[in-house]
């Protein structure tokens, strides 16, 4: 079972990967966006880490809710409300349980992802973070590692797509041939989850 500490470590791991790859994310965003995705998420996850350190929440749901609120309050842009909603809704779906299973998490994350789709109006194939998140949710039913692989594959599969949502959609055909920054960061978020699970010792 995954307790609050696990979710806490997940967020810290996500902050680490985002920090490591921030330049790369910004580079991707400069090709089809406005060159701020890396610094946006770095700022947001740094705030998440700080908030969690200050007063560590006691349940998985509370960890994700706090993280989501922090992202909404510090990121801005499209990714702030979307990632914030993802984590808040996932946290809400986890309820007050002190520990949850991988299957619980996959289900809750599914609700979170649905909320992102509803908020932003994007569907699979629109070349957004959803293209990494949707396959990840499915694969998490199998294993954390499968979730990571599916998310990365989903992110890479955005390259040939033409963007239909967000800033990249302004480019029309010129958005083709570039990997979506949000899908790439979403894959990092899922990779951080799998890393955390592996460090915790095998499949939880």
């Amino acid at each position, binding site marked *: 079972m995954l307790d609050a500490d696990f979710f806490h470590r997940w967020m810290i791991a996500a902050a680490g990967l985002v920090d490591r790859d921030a330049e790369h994310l910004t580079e991707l965003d400069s090709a089809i966006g*406005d060159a701020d995705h890396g610094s946006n998420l770095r700022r947001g996850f740094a705030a998440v880490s700080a908030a969690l350190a200050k007063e560590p929440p006691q349940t998985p749901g509370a960890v994700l809710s706090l993280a989501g609120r922090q992202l909404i309050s510090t990121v801005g842009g499209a990714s702030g409300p979307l990632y914030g909603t993802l984590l808040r809704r996932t946290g809400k779906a986890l309820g007050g349980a002190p520990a949850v299973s991988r299957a619980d998490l996959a289900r809750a994350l599914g609700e979170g992802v649905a909320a992102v789709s509803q908020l*932003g109006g994007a569907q699979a194939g629109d070349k957004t973070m959803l293209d990494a998140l949707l396959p990840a949710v499915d694969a998490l039913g199998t294993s954390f590692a499968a979730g990571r692989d599916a998310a990365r594959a989903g992110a890479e599969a955005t390259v040939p797509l033409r963007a239909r949502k967000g800033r990249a959609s302004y480019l029309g055909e010129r958005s083709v041939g570039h990997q979506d920054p949000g899908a790439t960061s979403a894959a990092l978020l899922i990779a951080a989850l799998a890393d955390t699970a592996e460090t915790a010792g095998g499949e939880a």
Partner: protein
Amino acid sequence: MLINVPETVVADALRGMAASHPELTVDVENRVVVRRDAPVAGKVALVSGGGSGHEPLHAGFVGPGMLSAACPGEVFTSPVPDQMVRAAAAVDSGEGVLFVVKNYTGDVLNFEMAAELADEEGLRIEQVLVDDDVAVTDSLYTAGRRGTGATLFVEKIAGAAADEGAPLDRVAAIARRVNESSRSFGVALSSVTTPAKGSPTFDLPAGELELGIGIHGEPGRERRAMMTSREIADFAVNAVLDDLRPGGPVLALVNGMGGTPLLELYGFGAEVHRVLRERGVVVARTLVGNYVTSLDMAGCSVTLCRADEELVRLWDAPVETPALRWGR
């Protein structure tokens, strides 16, 4: 770049505004710029905001006759809901608050969340979405037209209506009418360098230009060999007119993207007037300058607004902000 570190550019600029504009209250920590005499009793308040890097938009438009408050986000990143809620609370006189939102996914989502939160706090909020950029097809396959130069028209004219004492629904209706009556088209002659990235967002060799750009350093719809001022005016004004089809006089904004010298911008303004004359369009008022910018980007945009008598009267009404001042 003339900066300390990328992380503090917005806070540094707000400290600078605080030091040089005693007529504004600048909350550097919470990133809210408010006219000092707010809330103004009996008047609807206007709050806008968006990513930084477009100065003087928005904070430079705070003052009597225009915005009550502005919320600057990080460079090219929409502000967060907390800022907007704080701004709304600071300026609301009880008559309600109009949020002026440029149509970008980030701005729309953050203002939407702010509106919900403000609503929970008992504030009356209306929103107007600005989407004037004809370079973007407004279809299911895009995030819709971007908000660019028309923002200035909306903020000025709706601000004048609020100043006259119009109620919230009427101020919002005028703001929407201005937006629906406005179209823009922009051209980049250079890329843009954000403090965070430190190098140009896209490569644009000298001798080429990007047609149909926005104000965030996104590449445009099309790259071409360099055109003359005359040719660019033909292209941009025709793109706007073909979409706008004005039947009467227009307001014209000949806007610099930041890196184009005013000398060149005025020359471009002459060409804009020439095209309009050729197409039989009468220009009621023209504004030339760097108002809705994209950091150091060289280039320009043209915004036209179909102007009836009421809009011209509200445009001419007194305004007293750091970047726009006239009337008495």
